[in-house]
């Protein structure tokens, strides 16, 4: 994985929301990671961990508070020229969670899908645009006669396909999928996940797959990042994360997920976390997880743990793995 080309380098990205005077919500607080071309990077975490905010900040729906996002050699976190912005919009697209509110009920399927085409390629004739729409519908498994229908006539799964077609219309290289299957029935989730994988192979796409369902994320992703309260606590390949979770939170998360196998469930040892997630307005000092961590030590309250590559391609931020307990910086 290290000799692959890096598509995005995220460097200490922060997104804080100022609520009232002296109250900031630290939704994303110092995320550093690289995304390689052609991979699927999964991001998991529970509510309040900042994964959605991370996705939206990367795609520039939110302006970052601090940090850099280097995409194709250029920092896109800050000001861009009009031309650069246009290019970025073509390169990076997003698939949203709620199939019922992610499509404009007043527009036909064709209008929805072609919006991007008409913005970025205004010189195309109507016929050409329509032909592209039909191609896109076909690539997401929908019949082209659906193009002049309205969203309310479709099921949740079909609407998600339309959303995917919309994102593909501008030929992006990188797609951020923000909980794309959470609102779908279980049997439909598999359809959409398979579609995403097919499209990735066909078009060489890179995915950032944000979800809270670790089973699905592990299935579709090459690597997985685990987030907690605004920071990434562990990052490794999916198999490695499951077989050798290093961070106590990851261990607890894996242990909490019920598995569709009664014999395994009966014999499992569960790690039950105490308490609830602290508020991102007032996160704990030092390591954010320490208030619920079964292995918390004194140092955890004083110093935030360093992000280290503990094993090849396996990063973790936890004092349990820091031999040197020196307090520097």
């Amino acid at each position, binding site marked *: 994985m290290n000799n692959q080309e890096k598509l995005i380098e995220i460097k200490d990205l922060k997104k804080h929301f100022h609520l009232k005077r002296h109250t900031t919500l630290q939704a994303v607080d110092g995320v550093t990671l690289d995304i390689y071309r052609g991979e699927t990077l999964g991001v998991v975490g529970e509510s309040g961990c900042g994964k959605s905010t991370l996705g*939206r900040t990367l*795609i*520039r*729906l939110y302006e970052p508070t601090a940090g850099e996002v280097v995409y194709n050699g250029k920092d896109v976190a800050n000001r861009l020229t009009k031309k650069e*912005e*246009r290019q970025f*919009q*073509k390169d*990076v*697209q*997003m698939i*949203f*969670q*709620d199939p019922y*509110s*992610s*499509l*404009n*009920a*007043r*527009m*036909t399927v064709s209008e*929805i899908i072609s*919006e*991007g085409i008409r*913005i*970025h390629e205004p010189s195309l004739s109507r016929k050409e645009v329509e032909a592209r729409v039909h191609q896109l519908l076909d690539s997401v498994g929908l*019949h082209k006669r*659906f193009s*002049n*229908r*309205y969203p*309310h*006539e*479709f*099921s949740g799964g*079909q609407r998600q396909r339309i*959303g995917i077609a*919309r*994102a593909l219309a*501008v030929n992006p290289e990188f797609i951020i999928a923000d909980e794309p299957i959470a609102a779908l029935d279980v049997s439909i989730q598999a359809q959409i996940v398979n579609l995403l994988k097919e499209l990735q192979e066909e078009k060489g796409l890179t995915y950032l797959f944000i979800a809270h369902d670790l089973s699905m994320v592990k299935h579709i992703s090459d690597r997985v990042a685990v987030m907690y309260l605004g920071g990434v606590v562990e990052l490794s390949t999916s198999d490695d994360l499951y077989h050798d979770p290093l961070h106590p939170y990851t261990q607890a998360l894996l242990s909490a997920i019920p598995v569709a196998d009664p014999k395994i469930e009966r014999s499992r040892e569960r790690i039950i976390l105490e308490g609830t997630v602290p508020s991102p307005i007032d996160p704990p000092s030092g390591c954010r997880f320490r208030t619920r961590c079964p292995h918390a030590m004194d140092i955890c309250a004083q110093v935030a743990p360093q992000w280290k590559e503990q094993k090849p391609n396996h990063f973790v931020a936890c004092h349990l793995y820091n031999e040197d307990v020196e307090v520097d910086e």
Partner: protein
Amino acid sequence: MSEHRDHISEDMFTPDPIVGKEETQVSDTPQLSFWKDAWIRLRRNKGAVISIVLLLFITIMAFVGPMMNEYTYKDQQIAHSHLPPKVVGLEWIGFDGTDKNGVDVYKEKGIEDVYWFGTDQFGRDIWTRVWEGTKISLYIAFLAAALDLIIGVVYGGISAFYGGRVDNVMQRIIEVLVGIPNLILIVLFILILEPGILSITLALVITGWVNMARVVRGELLQLKGQEFVLASRTLGSSDFKLITKHLLPNALGSIIVTLMFTIPTAIFFEAFLSFIGLGLQPPLASLGVLIEDGYRTMQLLPYKMIYPAIVISVIMICFNVLADGLRDALDPKMRK
């Protein structure tokens, strides 16, 4: 339980999967856009349909009515004052020219001209005056609607779209405007200008659009955060396109309904002003003026008040019923 299935023959148990065949999941009924769907639902609402018909009828009459006879709204003929309504051919339902005591006033005064709704104290034809008054009420309706759309929608739209400090300032301004009672403004205008259409218009311009602005702002604020708007932004839509293609069309339902409710309020506002003497002045006759005229002699000469009262009541009820019907028809949750 086996008796049930014995009659099924053996060959029925041959495989016959139809999975993967042409997907007919989307219904074959013609695709209905939101508006067509809403129109169909509106048509089913009898009250709304009747209201539309009545309103159309009244609007036509407002223009055609005065032309149907030779009288104007201001010609005075004292000799013909206070004649009860008389319609040739409709004497049997009461249009017979007799007053409260059953006396045929026309015969008594030796008048041959026929006045369908009777005359007032100056001998002016009430029929013509009622329809002229309706014309004025409709003008007020149109004016209020136009202001709502031009000022209200734009104001609310800008406030919501840009949000933040812009929104704050604009909302505070509205709060000030709302705090000013309409009546005080009217009185001020009357002092500066004369009572009449102009002062009413100005009063409406200053405060009549505020409700619409708030409704539009509320709708747009909620729509702004919806995923389809975010999707459009990530695709690179310009602000203008976002507003015109995504935000406004989805807010249009609320806008139309609010409009339909604003109109009767404005009509009533004008009628009320005219009734208390702060509105139009004679010989101009709005429905309010006519009612004011007639209410003084309500007992003796009921016809002076009844006809304008009926017309204005019908207008207001119809707009309200229509607005209710529109609100139900445009409610996306009731779609199927």
